[in-house]
Structure formats: C-alpha cells, structure tokens
C-alpha cells in the first residue's frame, strides 16, 4: 500500500524488524528476572520446532491463531477493531458443543461441516450485538466487544456449571463427545511423520488453511470485499458509491465473529473433545497480534500464526524447563509485538522509508502527510509505477 518503499520491505522487512525489537525487549525482561535470555531462546526454539512432538503442538496452536487472526484481519479491512474474538470464540465453542452433543453422529466427516456452521453462527451472533450497537447507536465497538468478552465468560461459567454439565459430576464441563463427533488427530492420519500419539494437531488445521484461501478471495476478488476495503479506507467515499456503512459493518463483523467462532472446531472438537471452561485461553487476543504482524493479509496471518504457535509451544516448554518462568511471559512477548507492530510502527517505518528514498534517483510519490502533489507543474509529476 505504501509506495515509498518496495513491497517486500513493507510486508516482510518491517514486520521482521518489529519482531526482532519485541524479542530483544523480551530478552531484557528475562534477564531482569534473573534468567539467561539466550538459554530461554534456545529452549523456546528447540521445544517448538525441534521435534515432531513440538511441531504437533506448534501447528495446533497456530490453527487457533489462524482463525482468530483472520477474524481480526477481516474486521481491520473495514477499519473496525474487533477485540471480542475471545468471547466470540467461546460462544463458538458453545455452538460446536451443541452440534456435537445433540445428534448421534456416525462419522466425523458428517459432523464436521455442521459443527463448522454451528461454531460460525454462534460466533457471528456474539459479534452481531456490538456491531449493531456501533452502527445504530454509535457505541464504541472497542469497549462493547471487551465488555462482551467478560459477559461471555460469565455466561459460559453459568451454562457449564448449571445447564450443560454431566448430571452428578462436579466438574463444569460437558460429557465427552461420541466417537463420531471427535476429529482424528495427526498421529492417526499421518502416522509416519512421527507426531506423538496424543498430539492435539488435527484436521482443523486443513480447515484453517481453507479459511485463509477463502478470506483471500473474499477480500480481494469479490464485490463484498471491494466494498469492505473501500469502506475501510473512506466512509464518505463509500456513501458516495452507494455502499451502505450499516451493511458493511454488520457483514464484516459477522464474518469476523464467525471466523473466531470457527476456532472452536480446533479447540473443542479436535482437542478437548468436550466443552470445558475457557477453551479459548487467550487466543482471541493473540489474533490481534497475528493480524497486525501479518498486515491483515491471509498469507501474513498464516505465517504470523505459525510464529505465535511456536512461541506458545516454546513458552510451555520454557515453563517446564526453567524454574520460575511462567506462561505469562508469552503474553509479554505478544504485547510487545502488538506495541511495535501496531503502535510504534512509525518508529521503524520512517527511517526505513528515508533509507529507500535516498537510494532512489527518481522522484517518488508524495509523503504520507500531504493529500495533493506538492510543488512543480502537476502534469510533469513523475511517479513510481
């Protein structure tokens, strides 16, 4: 999108620099609490991608983050900040569980599509209310989606403790899904790769890949995507062109909520095989970091999700192997990635832009702060193709 630097710099170089900065600061934090950052980094990397066992978990987590990352990305294209992925995914879990529990599924290939619909519908519904309030009442969608996260948590506790739990049991969780409603894991499908028998990685990963492709086509090849992006760039222009802000906001949020809800296929149907308290485990928030790093593009989201999957799995290893290290360290890294990629973006972008501009001989496009071509005769303006 930015013509002051080549595309590869915009999509790859800057996110990499941001990531490096985030890791560097995290390393400082690790050192500050008295641990060795290099040792930590080693455990992180080897634990996540150094073995088939590690890969299994890495890809499993990545699947979650692909869904939530796509969710945030789609909303971002409409200039909407959907922080409600956490709650939408929780409701998606409810949808998936209801589908799995209510019918005697003979085979997972039949249960899966219906569960997909169930998860997406519930997730979309949870996003619909904040979306509606934003368009009709001007309620700030950031605050309402955050509130809905809290409300979802309370709702799920209530349902699991009172309505959905197995009668006679004390644990707030549903019964285990029957055989036909459980997804086969990677060890069952690809035994020769060497994933551990109990790896959580399952068929949902393929669903996630399909989702990436689907989102790409949606955003850049369909009319709806054209309208979403136009609206995201300029609401007055959208009105001029006959694009309805209400319709676009609602649709974008519904799709976004649906994608978050889809995450439940992986966590609830693929791994836990029952509905428990908090199957989402913060994935909704990671989705924000993933979408930012991936620049809201499905390919970027995919790669960023892999990265965060590795971070999560590596982080888990770190908690086992390093005394005193907690899972929250990953939250810190995640926060730093969001900070550098999202808020401090210009800190990296400006120097990199200047570097590219000074190496170029031809005059370039106008600088980001001015709307019209500055100085000179307009018809003579040379621009970068």
């Amino acid at each position, binding site marked *: 999108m930015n013509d002051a630097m080549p595309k590869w710099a915009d999509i790859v170089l800057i996110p990499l620099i941001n990531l490096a900065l985030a890791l560097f600061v995290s390393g400082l934090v690790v050192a500050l609490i008295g641990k060795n950052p290099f040792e930590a980094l080693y455990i992180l990397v080897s634990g996540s991608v150094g073995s088939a066992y590690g890969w299994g978990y890495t890809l499993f987590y990545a699947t979650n983050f692909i869904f939530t990352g796509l969710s945030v990305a789609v909303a971002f294209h409409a200039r909407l900040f959907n922080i409600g992925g956490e709650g939408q995914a929780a409701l998606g879990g409810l949808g998936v569980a209801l589908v799995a529990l209510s019918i005697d599924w003979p085979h997972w290939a039949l249960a899966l599509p219906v569960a997909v619909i169930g998860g997406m519908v519930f997730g979309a519904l949870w996003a619909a209310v904040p979306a509606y309030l934003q368009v009709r009442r001007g309620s700030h969608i950031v605050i*309402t989606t955050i509130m809905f996260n809290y409300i979802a948590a309370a709702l799920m506790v209530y349902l699991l403790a009172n309505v959905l739990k197995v009668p006679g049991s004390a644990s707030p969780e549903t019964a285990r899904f029957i055989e036909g409603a459980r997804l086969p894991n990677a060890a069952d499908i690809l035994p020769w790769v060497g994933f551990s028998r109990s790896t959580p990685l399952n068929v949902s990963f393929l669903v996630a890949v399909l989702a990436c492709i689907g989102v790409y086509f949606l955003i850049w090849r369909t009319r709806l995507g054209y309208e979403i992006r136009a609206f995201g760039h300029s609401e007055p222009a959208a009105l001029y062109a006959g694009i309805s802000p209400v319709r676009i906001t609602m649709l974008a949020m519904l799709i976004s909520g649906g994608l978050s809800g889809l995450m439940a296929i992986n966590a609830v149907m693929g791994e836990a095989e029952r509905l428990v308290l908090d199957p989402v485990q913060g994935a909704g928030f990671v989705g924000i970091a993933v979408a930012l790093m991936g620049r809201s593009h499905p390919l970027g989201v995919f790669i960023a999700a892999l990265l965060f999957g590795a971070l999560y799995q590596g982080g888990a290893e770190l908690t086992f192997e390093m005394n005193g290290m907690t899972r*929250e360290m*990953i939250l810190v890294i995640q926060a730093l990635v969001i900070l550098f990629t*999202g808020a401090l973006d210009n800190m990296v972008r400006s120097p990199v832009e200047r570097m590219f501009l000074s190496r170029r001989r031809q005059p370039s496009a106008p600088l980001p*702060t001015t709307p019209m071509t500055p100085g000179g005769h307009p018809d003579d303006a040379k621009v970068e193709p």
Partner: protein
Amino acid sequence: MDFLGVIQLLDSSLRLATPLLLACLAGLFSERAGIFDIGLEGKMLASAFFSAAVASYTGSVWIGLMAGIGASLVLAAIHGVASITFRGNQLISGVAINFLASGLTVVIGEAWFSLGGRTPQLEGAARFQEITLPFANAVRDVPYLGPIYADFLSGHSILVYVALALVPITWWVLFRTRFGLRLRAVGENPAAVDTAGVSVVGLRYAAVMICGVLTGIAGAYLATALSAGFVKEMSAGRGFIALAALIFAKWRPWYALGATLLFGLLEALGNRFQSLDLFGIPIPTQFMQALPYILTVVILAGFVGRAIPPRAGGEPYVKER
C-alpha cells in the same frame, strides 16, 4: 432493607467507586487533550502490583504508593511516545499496554515472590488504614444524620478522600487555569493551539502524565486499601468501566463523580445480593457479576444521548500544509 442497610450499601458503593473515579478522571484529562486511552486498565493493574509488592517489601504503604505511581507513569510514557511522537494508533497502543501489564505483573510477581503471581498479604503499615473523621463517634447516635456522617462518610482510607477532593480540583484546573484552557483547546483543535505558539506535544504529554499519576493512585488503592495485596488480573475490567462512565459523564468532572458512584452502587449491590430471587425467578450469581459489564453496554447503547467527544480525539496531530 432498613436505613442502616442502605447506609452500609452506600458506604460500600463509595469504597468501590473510588478506583473508578480516579481512573475516570485520569481518562478525562487524557481524552480532553485528544489522546484516547484504552490502557487505563493496564496502568491500574501495573500500579496495583508494584504498590503491593513494594509495600510488602518495605513495610510502608506510602513508598508502595510512589512505586505504583511510578509503574503507571512508565506505561503512560510508552502510550505517550507511541501516540504523540510516533503518531501511532492509540487504540492499539492501549490494548498492547493492557496485555503488557497483564503479563509483566505475573512474570515479575512470580520471580519476586514465587506465589503463583500474587504478592504476599499486606498488613499494618503496608496498608492504608481507615480514617475516622473528627467527631464521628460522638455523632453516631444522632438519628439519620449520625450514621450518614459516622458510617457512610467517615471511616474510609485516605485515598477515598483524595479521590473526592480531586473532582473539584480537576474542575478548577480545566476551567479556571491557563493550562486547562490550552488542554481543552488541544483536544478540540490542535492546529489552533499550534498556530498560537503553544506546544501541542507538550500539552499532550502533560495530559498523558497526569493520567498516569491518577491511574497510579487508582491501582495502589485497589491493592493496598480495598484489598490487602495483589492478585492476578485484579483490575477486572474497571479501566473499561471507567471509560464508559467517562462517556456517560460527557467528559465533565462532576458528572464523572455521579457516574462512577452509580457503578460503585451496582458493584455493591452485586456483592450484597449474591443471589437474588426476583419474583420467584432465581438470578444466578454470574449474572450479578456480569452486571457492571452489561450496564456499560446499555449505557453505551443509548441512555447517554448524544455524547460529543473532544473533536480531535484519537487523531494524531500532523501539521497540514
């Protein structure tokens, strides 16, 4: 419920409203200057942890308070740099700060205390104690007015009175001083301030720092007065509720007092009536717990009417040609 019960409820409401009031005033300064701050939550959390940790370590709650304010100021500075100097997206910055606080408080807490993320229980001088206002015991027996003074108004920790005093102080600063005029101007039309020869950047940083101090006090209150120590995620969404109260209050200090007292009342009701029976239908505890969040949504959805935020809110200032 009898009169004494009402007094007790009001007493709890004030106690619970205090952190909201402080956070709300913090947000007020920031947003009036044009900087959206969704990171009130994270700053409060960070301050809660550091004030409790340092109070526990040094045995002095005042040093703890300073530490808490310091932590909050550091996060405020990050938000300022990201939003003002680097003209970044203020919402993203706030969200990042919230996560950062969530993560760091536990990581550091675990490293320092090995208690799974909390601090040890605070006792004695490491906590803010209740203050009895003069003559409280003497007038308690006066019908109606007595309990109001002795049980409702008196007996709070000092930060509650500080928070209450900050309301008129905020009003005075914003509307009776040169600084306040300029601060309000910079949130409406920063170009007007810039062309008048006053530094937009300076004013906005000042606002962000004031916000940091106030959220610092709010967080310290949570961990050293309202509770006796820090636990994971103890801010529990109060930073966001404070934002809703701010919108409800149309960015005015005295209305902010009313709005936050209302939320405090709600929370007090939720605590008092753990489970209600409304016309024979049992209301689950989870609903009572979710009530403040539901009310926030309801407020944002409509009863606010048209609340017009500072015109230049949320947008980085760039000199136009």
